[in-house]
């Protein structure tokens, strides 16, 4: 019994009981959230309670201040701001590569090369069928086969382009969805800023809200290259490049155009998806260039020749791009109108065995184009380059995606080592707080025994 108060000791015991039981609750919460996404391990910040200075004269004065038990100052949240930013940067880079890889792979699936059913082999078959006609221009069946090969070539162009069109629609939807997610995450972060701000003003430590905001920031970083800056009031401001998208409680709605116009968008799956979309548009333009070149070159030669019946001036291919490419229905209906020969007199019929015009068409196969988008290349060479370039892009994106995945994995591991829940550690803390609770209970029973003794003396 000290002279600070008869029940002083009981109060100390009570504070110890409450504190260790609260710490035990934190351990329990950690264990419960061991597998919760974005949860940061929490720990009790336990401090000595306020002191009591004895007010009585006597020998106790010299003893000064008495400890007044224990208290929990706050609940700590394990977090490393530097790691958070590094991980977010890595997530953005991974997003870029994953987005580009997914989009370009989809494009490549449509292209389907090398194969025996792609544009390359359709081009070869078409030109070779012209050589077959040269071997036997009298044979309507062989002419019909050549016209059929021309139809196949037109068909593979239009169906590939149509496939790419629907891929483009999907990819555009993906980009739109990404933009929508950026804006909705920005709103979420701004709302959390408000709540965190309120709690902080009340002197509370809003750990769950902070975790939620960090998850939202992580998700946002997967979409775009974000930078965050913590504000004194507890809120964070978020920017993509030079565009601020969250400022305290307010957001700035962005579009793909607004982000790309300033060159703000550098990374993230939005950037990756958008770049794949650009690559797709580029590929489709080249498809049109190639289809137009084939149609233009073949038609120019075809027109100068004449069919068996003397019909001249016909186009073999009709259409204005890869999508609309098809074979002149007049020639499909009558393959003898295929301009295989050249009449010796204007307006006359070519000799049945004359294959000079079809040979000229066949020779286009190896012709180096001298003007336009294909300048300096053969048609087949241009196509091979298109396919190879696309393959190279997919392969680069795949390699860089696995490289960035590796760095994401490593940073995730580092972050987990700071913020994650380790069950063994929690078990150890559980034993520690259990023992502390048992000891605190002992303080109370001992004080009670002492009081019993005191009361017994009076009897």
């Amino acid at each position, binding site marked *: 019994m000290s002279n600070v108060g008869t029940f002083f000791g009981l109060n100390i015991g009570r504070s110890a009981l409450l504190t260790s039981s609260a710490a035990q609750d934190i351990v329990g919460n950690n264990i419960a959230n061991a597998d919760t996404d974005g949860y940061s391990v929490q720990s009790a910040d336990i401090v000595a309670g306020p002191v009591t200075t004895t007010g009585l004269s006597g020998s106790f004065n010299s003893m000064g201040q008495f400890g007044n038990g224990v208290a929990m100052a706050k609940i700590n949240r394990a977090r490393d701001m530097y790691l958070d930013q590094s991980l977010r940067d890595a997530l953005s880079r991974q997003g870029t590569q994953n987005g580009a890889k997914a989009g370009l792979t989809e494009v490549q699936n449509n292209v389907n090369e090398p194969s025996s059913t792609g544009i*390359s082999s359709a081009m070869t078959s078409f030109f070779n069928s012209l*050589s077959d006609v040269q071997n036997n221009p*009298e044979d309507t069946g062989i002419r019909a086969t050549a016209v059929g090969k021309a139809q196949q070539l037109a068909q593979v162009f239009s169906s590939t382009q149509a496939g790419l069109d629907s891929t483009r629609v999907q990819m555009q939807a993906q980009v739109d969805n990404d933009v929508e997610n950026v804006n909705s995450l920005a709103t979420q972060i701004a709302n959390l800023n408000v709540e965190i701000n309120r709690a902080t003003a009340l002197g509370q430590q809003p750990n769950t809200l902070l975790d939620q905001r960090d998850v939202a920031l992580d998700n946002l970083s997967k979409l775009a290259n974000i930078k965050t800056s913590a504000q004194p009031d507890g809120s964070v401001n978020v920017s993509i490049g030079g565009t601020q998208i969250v400022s305290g409680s307010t957001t700035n709605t962005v579009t793909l155009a607004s982000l790309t116009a300033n060159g703000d968008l550098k990374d993230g799956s939005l950037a990756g998806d958008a770049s794949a979309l650009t690559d797709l548009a580029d590929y489709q333009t080249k498809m049109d260039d190639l289809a137009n070149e084939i149609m233009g070159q073949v038609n120019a030669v075809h027109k100068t020749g004449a069919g068996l019946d003397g019909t001249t001036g016909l186009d073999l291919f009709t259409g204005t791009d890869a999508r609309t490419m098809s074979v002149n229905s007049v020639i499909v209906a009558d393959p003898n109108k295929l301009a295989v020969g050249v009449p010796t007199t204007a307006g006359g019929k070519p000799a049945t065995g004359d294959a000079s015009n079809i040979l000229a068409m066949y020779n286009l196969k190896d012709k180096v184009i001298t003007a336009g988008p294909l300048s300096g290349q053969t048609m087949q060479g241009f196509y091979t380059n298109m396919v190879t370039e696309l393959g190279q892009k997919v*392969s680069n994106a795949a390699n860089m995606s696995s490289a960035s995945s590796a760095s994401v*994995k490593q940073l995730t591991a580092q972050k987990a080592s700071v913020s*994650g829940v380790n*069950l063994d550690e929690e078990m150890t803390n559980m034993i520690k707080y259990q023992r502390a609770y048992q000891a605190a209970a002992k303080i109370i029973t001992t004080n009670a025994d002492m009081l019993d003794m005191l009361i017994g003396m009076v009897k």
Partner: protein
Amino acid sequence: MRITEALMTENLISNTGSSSASYNNTLNQLSSGKRINQASDDPAGTAKALALQGMISDMDQYSRNSDSAKSFLQYSDSQLGSVTNLIQQARQVAVAAANGATGDSTTQAAYSAQVDAIINQITQLANSDINGRRLFSGTATNTDAFDASDATHAYKGNSGALNAQIAPGVSLQINTPGDSVFSGIFSSLEALKSDIQNGNYTSISNNGIAGMDSSLNAVLTTRATIGNKLNQVSDTADRIQTSQLSLQDQLSTVEDVDLATTYANLQLAQNVYQASLSATSKALQYSLVDYIK
């Protein structure tokens, strides 16, 4: 480093996933037999494969062209062979007619009929076709080279060339326009016929036999040219076939899986996958919880 259970689980999942992906990839290569299934599998290899595939198709086409040229040339040669026989018969008639200077009108008529029959047969041979393609009409392939009813044997075809692309940049004329071979033959035969009919024996021995000899020579020269072309086609076809094989071989090197290496890789991938599965099954078995009473 402080390791958490959640991270361990995540790592196990991602590692098992990547080893199963590599196992699956190796299996795909083996089952398709192709190392390059998509351009991104090997972009440079894809460019090579596409170029090689194009070259192989071209070679296929040249082989087909050679086959077609060969049958045209062979048929031309065999028809000219028959023409040779017929001219030899006509020569025998000429010799007999010159020797048998008897003035027997029955014999004369028989000889003249023989020559006439020979003229008709040669006309038929000159008009023969392969797949509707007249051999000796130039590019007027749907027109008979000579009209059987035309006693002047005017050439109805043209001098156009039928060409075959038998190799890159090699275009071979496979036809012989009929006027160059047959016109001389017909006029010699007609001269012979009229000499026989007119009993002009001196002219038969002086000009008729010589006319047959020069006709034979003309046919033989043409056949020699055709023979040379046939040789050229065969030689070229052989070369094309050789380069086709070598191109196939190159394509296979670029495109196909190396079975031995891929089997070894499969075994390796399988082992890694098994190990990662077994590690996963053993993971997280113990924790402090097991020891707290």
